């Protein structure tokens, strides 16, 4: 009724409170599911021992620097991310550019390319684990029937091959995602600059280098950002495919965190490692976001 009288002070007050009211349920959920666990994780990471024997200390963080397993898991994660991202990006870009042209059967290719991405990572892990089995697997079976000697092709059993295998599986699964985003980016580029370039007589490479790439930059940065974050925390396929082995060859930081927490019951140390992963991921993401902002203001 007050509104009918045009009570200005109420409506402005109500409007100011309204966003908070509408946000309240979300904030509550966020508080319960993100903020509280985060604060709890900080607390746990600053404690050693469990139950009655728990005490405050920085041991979990100082231990990180002397833990060879942690350092090599971190290194594996970074190498994995860089190599997989490079392949996914280059292949994805190539395919996006190719399938952006008019050609026969384009829609079939596009649909087929998206299949791996739609599979759950666990399924991908199991499928490849079976396919890569050196003795009963489909890959060595095929090679054998072609008359090749597969004795030394123990895909997940020798350290180097295993690392390449897990990278290859990631590329197989996630290159389509890069392709999809880049294709969308390509299709959003207006035709005018291309027409102008054609009139000015620019070569295909020049058109690609000076028109396509700069105009595709926002899509490129976004896809790199998303993939980097995903790659740094990779867990499921590797867990199924090699469980970090042979030895420690494919152990990534997420696997090691899982082990510390759920196998060894050492939640404090796992939390400390998670913070390192969080900082690394945030630092890298920040670089991308800065570049993206620069792009927007330019």
């Amino acid at each position, binding site marked *: 009724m007050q509104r009918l009288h045009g009570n200005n002070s109420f409506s402005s007050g109500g409007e100011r409170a309204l966003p908070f*009211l509408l946000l309240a349920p979300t904030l*509550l959920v966020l508080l319960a599911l993100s903020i509280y666990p985060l604060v709890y994780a900080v607390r746990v990471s600053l404690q050693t021992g469990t*139950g009655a024997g728990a005490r405050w200390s920085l041991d979990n963080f100082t231990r990180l620097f002397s833990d060879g397993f942690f350092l090599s898991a971190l290194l594996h994660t970074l190498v994995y991310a860089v190599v997989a991202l490079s392949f996914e990006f280059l292949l994805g870009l190539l395919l996006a550019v190719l399938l952006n042209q008019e050609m026969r059967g384009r829609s079939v290719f596009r649909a087929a390319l998206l299949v791996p991405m739609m599979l759950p990572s666990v399924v991908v892990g199991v499928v490849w684990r079976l396919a890569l089995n050196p003795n009963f697997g489909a890959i060595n079976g095929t090679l054998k029937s072609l008359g090749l000697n597969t004795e030394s092709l123990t895909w997940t059993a020798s350290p180097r091959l295993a690392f390449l295998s897990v990278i290859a599986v990631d590329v197989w699964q996630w290159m389509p995602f890069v392709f999809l985003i880049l294709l969308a980016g390509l299709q959003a580029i207006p035709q005018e600059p291309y027409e102008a370039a054609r009139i000015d007589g620019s070569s295909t490479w020049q058109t690609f280098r000076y028109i396509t790439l700069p105009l595709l930059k926002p899509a490129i940065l976004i896809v790199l950002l998303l993939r980097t974050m995903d790659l740094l925390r990779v867990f499921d396929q590797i867990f199924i495919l090699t469980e970090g*082995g*042979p*030895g420690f060859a494919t152990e990534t930081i997420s696997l090691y965190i899982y082990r510390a927490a759920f196998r060894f019951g050492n939640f404090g140390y796992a939390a400390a490692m998670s913070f390192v992963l969080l900082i690394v991921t945030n630092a890298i993401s920040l670089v991308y976001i800065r570049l993206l902002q620069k792009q927007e203001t330019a």
Partner: protein
Amino acid sequence: MLKRPLRLKTITFTFVSILFISLLSASCGRDSGGGGKQLTLAVNAGVEGDALKQAARDYEAQTGVHINIVEFPYSNLFDKELVDLSARTGAYDLIMLDDPWFPRFAGEEYLADLMPLYKKKNLAGPDDDFVQTSLALCRHPYSTGTLYALPYLGNSQLFFYRKDIFEKHGLKEPQSWEDVLQSARVISEREMTGAPGGGRLYGYVMRAAQGNAAVADFMPIFWAFGAEMFDAEGRATVNSAEGINALRFMLELGKSAPPGYSSFNADEVSAHLLQGTAAMSINWPAWIAAFSDPNKSKVIGKMAFTTMPGAAKPGQAEIGNWLIAIPRDARNAEAAFDFLVWVTSAEQLKRSALRGNPPTRRSVFNDPELVAKFPTYPVQLRSLETSRPRPRTPRWNEIENAFGIFLSKANSGELSPEDAMNQANAEIMKIVERK
């Protein structure tokens, strides 16, 4: 402007009521758990837990005590129990646990001492029918200390080999690891097309994937060679001359194994045995039944099972028992104890055996009806009675993980046996010494 505080009040009210409602519903959930004849039992999802679940249903029908069963897959059971026991929620009255976890749970004083409960019931304690090596696992410290659990399922490793192939080449049942190696070489060389379908039949197959797999398949060799993981003062000694020799031997044996064995786990090893592409292995009794299943096995009636070969020392298998314990903060400890005594009685363990679980009592292993049904029971009992536990340390999971990584590295050719054992030793020392 005057009305704004009112709006804030509304928001506060909404917050508070939501909080209140959620707290109320949470506390309701807790109340219904206490009082009355009710027990909550945490079990492993799988064949071991299934028999216990069925026993619990029988118990319900007999006594009217309601039993809630909470089931977790093996990979989650340890952390669920650890979190609950350390938070002292008293959510479980009984927990099923794998024996390597016991030193951690008992060491942190999370479990109830069973002797006062025996006294309350005017019972002397666990009877002599339990296999000694199984009951020893339930005491902290090992074998001599306080009784915190009772053994429910009595597994220990067995040595599996193809008796038809052994007969064909005039080989005798292996008594020592040297016999195993010689036989493995003979079979790998002579059976280039010996597998069903014309593939190669390898002499030996083992699990050398990092973690539990490699360690479990290595320990019988390690012990037989006279190596020990710790000395009397608790210092790691895996890089002793005996330890390094044992690992060298494992790599020698690996030359007669299918390629890629350094990433094998239980599934791959069993597949090789069932498909007839490997002739020998260490494995757990749970796999025995599969060999006579025509859907899985190409080697029906051809597999023999025996105790662990020896070397410098007599052969010893690794023991792997499932135990049942009562958490110290259990709400119905006495009722839980009644169930525990009942379910580990000879009569109930026989029923559990018929459901596929090896027992922990001698009388059940020797039961004629069971021996007729499970001809390997005499061998299983001999293996169990001479078996050895994994080193009793609260940090076993972590030590096993580290040790397994270096064993796997040696088997995949990444490290020499000396380097692998030296690095493993340093890593194990680091884990033991950490505060």
